[in-house]
């Protein structure tokens, strides 16, 4: 039973990763592409590792997979934030569809 549920969760994770990759190609600029990548991380990668945990239970493999979920949750948003902030500060423009930019005044103030 656990094996079937684990395989279903892994499948959901793979589908989410696939859709995230399509988003990475289709979206127009750096910031929206980062959005697609964080989408991959949450349901995709963590879904796959959580599926491995459900599949193999409290064995050494399962607990390691659970630890990877926790560490990815803690570290991946930091890298996304650093990439977005560095891109903005080094002058990467937002795409034409963008409607507002409240951050500009803060950057101009220094």
């Amino acid at each position, binding site marked *: 039973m656990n094996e079937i549920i684990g395989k279903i969760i892994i499948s959901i994770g793979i589908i989410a990763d696939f*859709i995230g990759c*399509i988003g990475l190609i*289709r979206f127009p600029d750096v*910031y929206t592409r980062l959005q697609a990548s964080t*989408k991959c991380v949450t*349901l995709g990668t963590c879904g796959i590792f959580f599926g491995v945990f459900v599949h193999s239970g409290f064995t050494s493999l399962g607990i390691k997979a659970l630890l990877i979920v926790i560490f990815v949750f803690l570290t991946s948003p930091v890298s*996304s934030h650093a990439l*977005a*902030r560095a891109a903005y500060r080094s002058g990467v423009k937002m795409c034409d569809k963008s409607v507002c930019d409240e951050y500009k005044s*803060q950057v101009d103030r220094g």
Partner: protein
Amino acid sequence: MIYRKIFLTLLIFVIWIILSGVELYNILVGIFCSILIVLLFGDINIQNQWTVNKPQRYLWFIYYFIVFLYEVIKANLDVAYRIILPNMPIKPGIVRVKTKLKSDAGLTLLANSITLTPGTLSVDIDKDNGYIYVHWIYVRDINIEETTKKISWKFEKILLKIFP
């Protein structure tokens, strides 16, 4: 503080051995990594040590995690819908969000939650005035009260109880 470091090294090493089994290769890797980790991060302390002993914080944290998972799955479906539709209904922009949190850990957790929720990405933080700058994939409102209500309040009202 040398005893504390030796204790930490042994603790990390024992957990590693329990997780991976007794083999020569595992033991060598475990010794190397546990010493390296303690040398790099052994000096880090918890800032407010009295907060560790309050049990209701952990209950709130579990509740927070459930709310967070629900929001993440909801937002994931929303972003997947925007990616798949042929005309891509996106309206990106950077908005401001107000926060009442003061502690470093609370702010980090809030910014991380905003980033991990698909559709929103925290770009920068203004700690003095309590603003977080958030890139939003579909800007529904520019007004600061509305954005706070829609993006961060669902997380912040719980985090305010964990990090008062």
